[in-house]
């Protein structure tokens, strides 16, 4: 296994992207980071009306290619402030009760103030067996802010509907290829879209490349729809994380550190065959490793992008992560770097001829 860090990766950006706070509908902290990193390397930055950010690097009147990762992370909203000042939670995105007790979170108020709290739980002492063996539903959990009562919470400016997000610092692990942080789903991929722009920023290419941070993926792929409507792309790659199956509790084909993962299908899209083939030949030419992913449950932004207008040539590339939808996810640098390189090469190769080839098998 690699001990030296694999390839080129902007760790400052990755750290900022991971540590930023933003559930579905509240992604502006993330989009501002994306703006900061995209501005110097793209021609124009625009937004859709839900907040998805679009950075375009213009080519020479070639096809438009959209590279999308979503900016929202899973989190909670303040559902109720009880009389003792405990915060009752409303999950936004899918959470498993198992990963929550004793984890710390931040509440962000409407004015942007941030307060720390911990999810409380019972002590094991004398707990009944059936209680111990049962997973608590997220809706039944509560956040303890360490206050006397409801009024103290209100005095902090906390209100129903405020965003609650995990409190996790980015960390480079013992082997520097392993990176731990929150929200790799899908900040890692939004960051990858920026790095694609970075990789091609000095290349003279024909295609217009749109790097996009979409909003509201976790609640229904909504920003992908509005962003695709803004761009009207000819070709699109959605980037999302997939579950690594390489731990004592998860066993399967997808493993960290194995390179590019081409998603053949998920519940909402069957990847475009010609595009898939092109990605395979790019990987071969660049000596990148090829893996395949197939999901029958769950979808990605591609599901909405490929159905926009009269249809978009589209597929998903996945980056494996362990411990999805929790406070601490672990990814592998090689998977990220290879994914970025493969997509950058697609951008370089895409012209109207290639586009025609993609469409050739239809009709």
């Amino acid at each position: 296994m690699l001990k030296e860090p694999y390839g080129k990766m902007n760790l400052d950006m990755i750290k900022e992207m991971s540590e930023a706070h933003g559930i579905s509908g509240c992604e502006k902290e993330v989009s501002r980071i994306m703006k900061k990193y995209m501005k110097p390397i793209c021609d124009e930055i625009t937004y859709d009306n839900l907040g998805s950010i679009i950075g375009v690097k213009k080519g020479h009147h070639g096809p438009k290619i959209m590279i999308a990762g979503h900016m929202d992370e899973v989190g909670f909203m303040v559902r109720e402030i009880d009389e003792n000042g405990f915060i009752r939670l409303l999950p936004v995105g899918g959470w498993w009760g198992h990963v929550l007790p004793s984890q710390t979170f931040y509440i962000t108020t409407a004015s942007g103030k941030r307060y720390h709290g911990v999810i409380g739980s019972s002590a094991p002492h004398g707990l009944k067996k059936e209680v111990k063996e049962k997973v608590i539903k997220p809706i039944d959990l509560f956040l303890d802010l360490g206050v006397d009562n409801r009024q103290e919470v209100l005095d902090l400016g906390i209100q129903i509907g405020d965003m609650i997000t995990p409190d996790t610092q980015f960390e480079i692990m013992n082997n520097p290829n392993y990176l731990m942080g929150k929200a790799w789903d899908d900040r890692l991929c939004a960051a990858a879209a920026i790095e694609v722009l970075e990789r091609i920023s000095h290349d003279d290419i024909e295609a217009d490349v749109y790097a996009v941070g979409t909003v509201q993926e976790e609640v229904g792929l909504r920003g992908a729809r509005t962003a695709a409507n803004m761009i009207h792309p000819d070709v699109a790659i959605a980037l999302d994380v997939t579950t690594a199956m390489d731990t004592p509790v998860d066993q399967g084909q997808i493993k960290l550190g194995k390179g590019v993962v081409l998603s053949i299908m998920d519940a909402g899209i069957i990847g475009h065959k010609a595009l898939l083939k092109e990605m395979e030949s790019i990987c071969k030419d660049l000596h990148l490793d090829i893996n395949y992913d197939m999901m029958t449950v769950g979808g990605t932004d591609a599901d909405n992008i490929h159905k926009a207008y009269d249809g978009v040539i589209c597929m998903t590339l996945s980056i494996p992560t362990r411990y999805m939808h929790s406070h601490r996810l672990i990814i592998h640098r090689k998977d990220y770097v290879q994914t970025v390189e493969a997509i950058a090469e697609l951008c370089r190769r895409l012209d109207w001829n290639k586009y025609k080839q993609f469409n050739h098998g239809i009709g």
Partner: protein
Amino acid sequence: MDSLKLMEEMTQVVGIAGDERRVSLLLKSYLEPYCDEIVYDHLGSLFAVKKSKKENAQRVMVCGHMDEVGLMITEITKNGLLKFIKIGGIDNQVLLSSRVRVLKQDGNEVIGIIGCSLKDIEACDEKKMLIDIGASGQEEVENMGIHVGDSAVLDGSFTIFNENRIVSKAWDNRYGCIMAIEVLKALKDIELDYDLYIGATVQEEVGMRGATTATGLIHPDMGIVMDCSFADDYQGKDNEIGQLGKGILIRYYDKGMMPNRALLNYLVEICQKNDIDYQYFYNMGQTDSAWIHKLFAGCPTLSTCICARGVHTGNSMIDLRDYNSAQKAIIQVLTSLDEKQIQAFKEENR
């Protein structure tokens, strides 16, 4: 016309999803005097247009939905009973022994009651239930002018309980239709900074279909949805979600839309400034907002709902004070909006 009379007329008219014409005709008659033009999408959604004096003004779409949940006749049995399916979500326990109004194609109605075999009565789903209109055979039903495909709704007359509580069928969502009429009327001498499209969509109860097409028609810069949500306040606890008489709903989460934060706060501030009752609300349902806000490049959309007990039954109950709170708030929102403000909502999450 007085408000209660209008409420009675609008809630009592029959119009299930896909068969909203009678509601639509009424709406048109009440909206027409106060607008420049009436427009329709091709599914039947109807909007009154009140133009601003600006060229290329922004468009604000304000809507309820015309359709109500109900039944559709699927078969006439040999012994003169009517089999049916549900159009929209109705719990089975609401159906049995209910009085229904069957709408014939000539526009007249026939009263029926829903029954079932004695052996089925304990675990009865709608497949075992039948509408009884007093006919003794298939031919008699046909002679009465009832056809497969005709609509029926659960009957529920308009009744005022204890001054402020109004019971009727179809508060979901004639609330939105009535509000559209009264709001447009209230704005008649007011000039707006944008073109107002106010009216009602069709087919919300079967999948917000009219909202999709109406948004396609209008291509709005901002949306406001007026719908009637489930109250859940029978236990009398302080923390119940959707309490009658506690004011307009500040809908901060549902399955169809994450709120535009600036727009939601705008509504809260309007309520605070004008002493309008409001309550925070979330549920796992959705409204027309779900589609309005995410078509085209997206548009800031606000839910301005009230809650009712007994939604999707023949006897839903609203509190008149909630209606009045919502009306004040909606008028305040609409009269204070301008181009700059709408643009700010669009840029809220950047």
